[in-house]
């Protein structure tokens, strides 16, 4: 079966280069050049699927294959490898299934909590859309945090700063916004800040002081900002804002995981296994603390009354 692929190339500057590439491909049946772009440094060609690796090896031998770019695959490629549990991406696949499983478990816990404690509470009915975001936020942040933790030893300064900032900012923003909406500015800011700062420091610990400092600053800023925005929107479209915010945070956390795999590669070290039980216990505890704060925390009724 033939397929068409695009490869990043280098050292291709003239007609002679294209001719040499053409000669390489002519040695394989059904292989032909579709296009060569000297400006974009890309080569698109059609060949039999079984010949792809040999052709790449030949291009490598002639120093035309851009190894650095070729080893940094696109988002769709990585996503497919992770979902399909391709060899080399087993740890990421496990992390993804654990995150989804964790989200399910946390939603179940939320449902049970409702039946046990909140079903008689009129205020709960008013704020249930906010509560539904809590399990999602915890599962997303836990999955991202573990991904960063597994690869933090391989971070350089820039990777560490980016990962620390993303974890600090997303966890701080999400928790600050939820608690700000249900408990007001003070509680939202303090807890959002504490969660953002501690999550980032834990995620990038041992990855360099710059990553830790960046995470601490991001956690501080996002924790207070999330709470502030929620309080400012109590008389506006707060619920729509919270859902948009969580959607944006989900995209950013997914982007961060892609960035890590692209920059560092899949999890390869001896700590491949991601234990679900400790992750589940800690996450359920965090959820229960959040629920307790939302229901019984200071200023909660004031915030709820304005929703």
């Amino acid at each position: 079966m033939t397929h068409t692929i695009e490869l990043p190339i280098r050292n291709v500057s003239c007609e002679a280069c294209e001719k040499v590439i053409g000669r390489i491909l002519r040695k394989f049946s059904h292989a032909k050049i579709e296009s060569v772009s000297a400006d974009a440094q890309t080569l698109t060609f059609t060949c039999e699927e079984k010949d792809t690796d040999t052709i790449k090896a030949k291009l490598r031998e002639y120093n035309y294959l851009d190894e650095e770019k070729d080893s940094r695959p696109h988002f769709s490629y990585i996503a497919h490898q992770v979902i399909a549990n391709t060899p080399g991406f087993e740890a990421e696949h496990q992390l993804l299934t654990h995150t989804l499983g964790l989200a399910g478990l946390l939603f179940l816990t939320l449902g049970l909590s409702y039946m046990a404690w909140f079903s008689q509470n009129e205020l709960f009915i008013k704020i249930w859309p906010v509560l539904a975001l809590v399990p999602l936020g915890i599962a997303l942040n836990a999955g991202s945090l573990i991904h960063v933790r597994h690869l933090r030893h391989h971070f350089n300064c820039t990777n560490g700063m980016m990962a620390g900032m993303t974890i600090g900012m997303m966890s701080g923003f999400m928790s600050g916004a939820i608690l700000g909406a249900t408990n007001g500015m003070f509680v939202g800011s303090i807890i959002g800040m504490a969660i953002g700062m501690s999550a980032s420091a834990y995620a990038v610990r041992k990855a360099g002081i710059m990553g830790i400092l960046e995470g601490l600053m991001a956690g501080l800023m996002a924790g207070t900002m999330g709470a502030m925005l929620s309080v400012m929107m109590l008389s506006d479209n707060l619920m729509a804002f919270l859902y948009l915010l969580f959607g944006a945070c989900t995209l950013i956390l997914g982007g961060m995981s892609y960035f890590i795999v692209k920059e560092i590669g899949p999890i390869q070290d001896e700590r491949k296994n991601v234990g679900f039980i400790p992750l589940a216990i800690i996450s359920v505890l965090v959820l229960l603390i959040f629920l307790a704060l939302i229901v019984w925390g200071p200023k909660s009724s004031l915030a709820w009354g304005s929703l």
Partner: protein
Amino acid sequence: MKKTLKIKDMHCSSCEILLKEAIEETGTKVVSTNHTKGEIVVDMKDEKEMVPVKKAIEKEGYSVA
């Protein structure tokens, strides 16, 4: 005998690869190529081999100075 050919417009490694393969297809051995100097050193048994070598070079769009 070794002979150095001066090639016009040979400016990159691809030109070297292209010309080396084209010359060797005629049966003449290429000893070395140098695109910065625009030179190809070939090992010929006699002068008669120059005719197909020149033809092969010109077929690829280059010329021997």
